[in-house]
């Protein structure tokens, strides 16, 4: 019974000793994202800030740096801080269950964002990563007429990335498209550039028709490698995210990034924040909200809103 | 004498406890030992003699299992059996104990632990070390040596001489049958040496065979029974000590006649006291030991600084050199008050300092001999930061010749030199900056007799040219031989001053023990 005071009265906040500090203060929404070293999650953070403004709540944003233990610690700290809603972009769907459980026990609503989370979250708002990969795959088939050689630039071993890869590979299954190289760009422009240089080396001119990169920073890295190797016209690139850096690049005349499966991180978070508030106020909510992914191509670029 | 006779007689009858024959050793194509031999009998002290770099330490390291002889490089018979030590542990377990020339202590451990290191500590039934008993045991060893060191103290807080005592205590802490003492007295003063000799006598009686290496001739004749001389890695001679004398031994060692120990003839002229002192201390004190020391040193004068172990001489010169901090007092150079906060300040005031511990404070072990000599003077030999190597090489060569430093090449790392030659390299470094004041802390520690004479001559010549020298030495004959004036310290204070004429060993000892 050591920590009774902190785990009980979450719904009626007048009952314990820290009440005076919380009572007339603003609500607090906490968000833990995979890593703030990726613009996608930075945009999520921005979305949370905006949602906070609209809802009149204070917002805490933490970066787990793809470390589940760190994310678990962050959630524990959120519980200590007695935040009102936790928005969770889980590093790992299953592994985060223990932390989610702790938050639930403390009576704090948890909304999963972008990535599913076990342990009994109140709702999940996600863009479909599998679909993102699938759309990219279908686009590649269409462009290549169902035939050709491609390279895949993989990313860090997290489920969001794995889902994209799976969606993509499922989509090209059955076609005559051959994967000639699959290397890990670790989700960054820098590493993708380096591995792509190697792939270009191992696969002489004319042997690659397209490249699928699991996110936009990688896609840009691939484009730079292509450009510096003077093999610009040889193949096109498809990314995932719809990040500003990618759409800017795509807007250029000669860009070889043809398409990106765009998600909307800030929209997702805003939606999640609203749902979180509803849960807190005891309202009924849907437990799964899928924010669709849209494929943005060079042609549809103008109509794309962006993050 | 009785013991000596006995050993002589016995040696005809009984077998040597240890017999090394035809030992050869090559380091990366340099042959250091060629066909060297030694026989050790129980209960004898065997003096191993030779110039710096003759191969004494290397020879003994083979005996102790630290180095392996070359292939087909000779045999070692221990108690009549041929042996081949796997490693030092092996040799040690069989009863070979060594006092190394270079100190081998763990600075961060207590004296007790250093003394008992490598042996099984007393433990209780749970396997827990019983610290009280460890300290007690160490205390017993220290007591037997007449040392007043506190066994619980950390070794890093000890002066070099005190560390030497710990090293000795370690070698004595277990019962050995062969004891190698590689220059055990190099930094000790008479008081400790006398005690050490008592211990050696006891060990002899117990039948321990002792190899004794020292460059101090008088010691050799005081305690040895037999001798072996090495020269340039070769065996030259062995025999009973009474069949030789110092001159003969020196001749065997250097291969030619060598005059007596150098004696400074042109003593400093006291009438020149109206001269301006080049260095003057007024009421110098430091945090640790030095208390209220004042004296003057004039150009052209060699001042000896004597005292017992721990008297504070080292601390005093370190403070003068800016290596440690003064708490009060003033230093004047050429009658001008100077602020010395670091060695850089001291050097720019023309003060040079040969430190006590060459390995810790002097040498850049992985750098070449050449660079070690010229490190203090690189600036003089560079233009806008770029070193003129030609000039450096020439200067280094000059000093190597002048001090007869024995090396294979000036590019050789200094770590490969014998102890005495390393010492000479450090001295050369400080001569190269042409200082006004030279502070020498045990400058001939471990230096052989020929080189010592050489160093004395150089110091003397420089003094004649106007250099002021402050010389710390624990070897009284050295202090007496070359000083114009002798200051004596005890417990951090200056307790006496003796002119060259009036100084004797007895008077120095009188002042040195005044504090007790």
């Amino acid at each position, binding site marked *: *019974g*050591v*920590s009774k005071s*902190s785990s009980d009265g979450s719904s009626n906040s007048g009952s314990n000793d*820290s009440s005076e*500090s919380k009572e007339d203060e603003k609500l607090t929404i906490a968000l833990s994202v995979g890593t*703030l070293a990726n613009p996608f999650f930075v945009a999520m953070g921005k979305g949370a800030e905006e949602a906070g403004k609209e809802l009149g709540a*204070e917002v*805490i*944003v*933490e970066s787990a*740096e*793809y*470390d*589940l*233990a760190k994310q*678990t*610690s*962050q959630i*524990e*700290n959120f519980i*200590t*801080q*007695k935040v009102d809603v936790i928005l969770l972009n889980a*590093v*790992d769907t*299953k*592994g*985060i*269950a*223990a932390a989610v459980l702790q938050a639930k026990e403390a009576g704090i609503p948890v909304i999963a964002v972008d990535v599913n989370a076990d342990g009994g979250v109140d709702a999940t708002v996600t863009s479909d990563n599998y679909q993102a990969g699938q759309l990219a795959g279908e686009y590649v088939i269409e462009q290549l007429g169902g035939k050709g050689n491609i390279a895949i630039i993989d990313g*860090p*071993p*997290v*489920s969001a990335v*794995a889902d994209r890869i799976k969606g993509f590979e499922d989509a090209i299954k059955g076609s005559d498209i051959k994967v000639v190289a699959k290397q890990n760009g670790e989700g960054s422009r820098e590493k993708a550039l380096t591995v792509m240089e190697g792939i270009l080396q191992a696969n002489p001119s004319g042997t690659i028709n397209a490249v699928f990169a699991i996110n936009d920073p990688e896609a840009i890295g691939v484009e730079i490698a292509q450009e510096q190797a003077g093999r610009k016209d040889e193949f096109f690139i498809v990314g995932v995210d719809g990040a500003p850096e990618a759409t800017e690049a795509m807007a250029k005349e000669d860009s070889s990034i043809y398409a990106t499966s765009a998600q909307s991180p800030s929209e997702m978070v805003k939606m999640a924040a609203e749902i979180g508030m509803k849960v807190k106020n005891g309202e009924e909510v849907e437990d799964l909200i899928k924010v669709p992914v849209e494929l943005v191509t060079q042609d549809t670029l103008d109509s794309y809103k962006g993050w | 004498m009785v013991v000596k006779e006995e050993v002589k007689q016995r040696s005809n009858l009984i077998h040597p406890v240890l017999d090394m024959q035809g030992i050869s050793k090559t380091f990366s194509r340099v042959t250091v030992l060629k066909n060297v031999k030694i026989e050790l009998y129980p209960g004898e002290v065997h003096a191993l003699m030779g110039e710096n770099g003759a191969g004494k330490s290397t020879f003994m390291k083979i005996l102790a299992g*630290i180095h392996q002889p070359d292939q087909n490089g000779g045999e070692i018979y221990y108690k009549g059996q041929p042996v081949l030590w796997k*490693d*030092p*542990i092996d040799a*040690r*377990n069989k009863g070979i104990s*060594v006092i190394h020339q270079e100190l*081998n*202590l*763990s*600075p*961060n*451990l207590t004296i007790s*632990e250093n003394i008992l*290191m*490598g*042996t*099984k*500590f007393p*433990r209780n039934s749970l*396997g*827990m*070390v019983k610290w009280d008993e460890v300290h007690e045991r160490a205390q017993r060893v220290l007591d037997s040596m007449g040392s007043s060191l506190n066994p619980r103290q950390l070794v890093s807080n000890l002066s070099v001489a005190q560390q030497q005592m710990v090293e000795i205590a*370690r070698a004595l802490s277990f019962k050995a049958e062969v004891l190698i003492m590689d220059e055990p007295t190099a930094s000790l003063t008479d008081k400790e040496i006398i005690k050490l000799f008592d211990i050696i006598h006891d060990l002899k009686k117990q039948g321990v065979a002792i190899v004794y290496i020292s460059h101090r001739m008088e010691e050799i004749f005081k305690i040895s029974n037999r001798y072996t001389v090495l020269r340039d890695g070769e065996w030259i001679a062995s025999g009973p000590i009474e069949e030789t004398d110092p001159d003969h031994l020196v001749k065997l060692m250097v291969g030619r006649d060598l005059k007596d120990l150098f004696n400074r003839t042109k003593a400093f002229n006291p009438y020149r006291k109206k001269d301006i002192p080049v260095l003057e201390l007024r009421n110098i004190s430091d945090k640790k030991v030095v208390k209220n020391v004042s004296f003057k040193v004039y150009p052209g004068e060699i001042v000896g600084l004597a005292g017992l172990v721990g008297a504070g001489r080292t601390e005093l010169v370190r403070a003068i050199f800016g290596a440690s901090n003064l708490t009060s007092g003033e230093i004047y150079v050429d009658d001008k008050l100077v602020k010395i906060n670091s060695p850089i300040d001291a050097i720019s005031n023309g003060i040079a300092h040969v430190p006590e511990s060459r390995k810790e404070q002097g040498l850049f072990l992985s750098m070449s001999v050449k660079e070690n000599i010229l490190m203090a003077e690189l600036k003089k030999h560079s233009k806008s930061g770029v070193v003129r190597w030609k000039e450096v090489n020439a200067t280094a060569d000059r000093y190597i010749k002048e001090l007869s430093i024995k090396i294979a090449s000036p590019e050789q790392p200094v770590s490969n030199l014998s102890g005495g030659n390393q010492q000479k390299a450090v001295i050369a470094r400080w001569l190269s900056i042409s200082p006004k004041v030279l502070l020498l802390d045990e400058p001939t520690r471990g230096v052989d007799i020929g080189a010592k004479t050489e160093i004395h001559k150089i110091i003397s010549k420089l003094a004649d040219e106007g250099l002021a020298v402050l010389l710390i030495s624990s070897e009284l004959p050295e202090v007496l031989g070359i000083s114009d004036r002798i200051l004596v310290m005890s417990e951090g204070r200056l307790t006496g001053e003796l002119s060259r004429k009036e100084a004797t060993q007895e008077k120095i000892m009188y002042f040195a023990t005044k504090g007790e």
Partner: protein
Amino acid sequence: MIMILLLLCIVLSFTAPNFLETANLLNVLKQVSIIAILAAGMTIVILTGGIDLSVGSTVALSGVISVMVSSAGVNPYIAMLSGAAVGYAVGLINGFFTAKTKLPAFIVTLGSFTYVRGLAYVISGGYPIVLENETFKFIGGGSIIGIPTPIYIMLLVYVVMFFILKYTMFGRHIYAIGGNEEAARLTGIKVEKSLMNVYSISGLLAGLGGVVLAGRLYSGQPTAGQMYELDAIAAVILGGTSLVGGRGKIQGTIIGVLIMGVISNGLTLMDVNYYWQLVVKGGVIIAAVLLDRLRGDSAA
């Protein structure tokens, strides 16, 4: 350093809401427990003058393997032991190359850092492995009389390590080797054997850390433990152990671990922007050693 830790706590008790609550302090202890376990092993490695970069990767491999073993239906205790054994094996390899073939510890353990992580990925296929067993979960996520299990484990590790360093021959040999390896060798200490043991223990503790983490995360994560080696080393050095070897105490290490943990926890509680957290954290680390140094100088 303990003064600096107290100072930090005092500052945080004013600036960070809820910092001093029991629940939060237990949180901090629980959060640092894994790094603390690694840092205990790291302490002895650094005391010998070595370094062990492989502990973070070992946490991952041990977690993955022990959870897989457990999922295979094996007794949970044996599964946990298997994780520790994996760590021990990694340590043994590190020890072999550093002690016997005398390769630089930095390179050897950098190699392990890389291949052990690779193995964790290969074995798990890159996916986290779910842990079902309740006993196993208890070791990382459970609590006894309100205190989380990992805290007990951490305390046990430190008590044992304190005892080893102070009262066993092995412990004293660690100091001797770090202080002067040559001297240790010459006095008959079995330097190689001691070094083998030191690295093995570090590996073993990393393995244990991996098991506890798996229990805490209800899964074996191939990505777990990244940068843990840096945190562990930092804690050891913050705790006053010298990278040169031979000097330091295990008590210092736990203080170092707590300083790092308290800073992170405090910054989160104070709701400092994540980017600024890094800036402040970096500054506080330097300030902490600096203050400690200044204090030490004036006290001496």
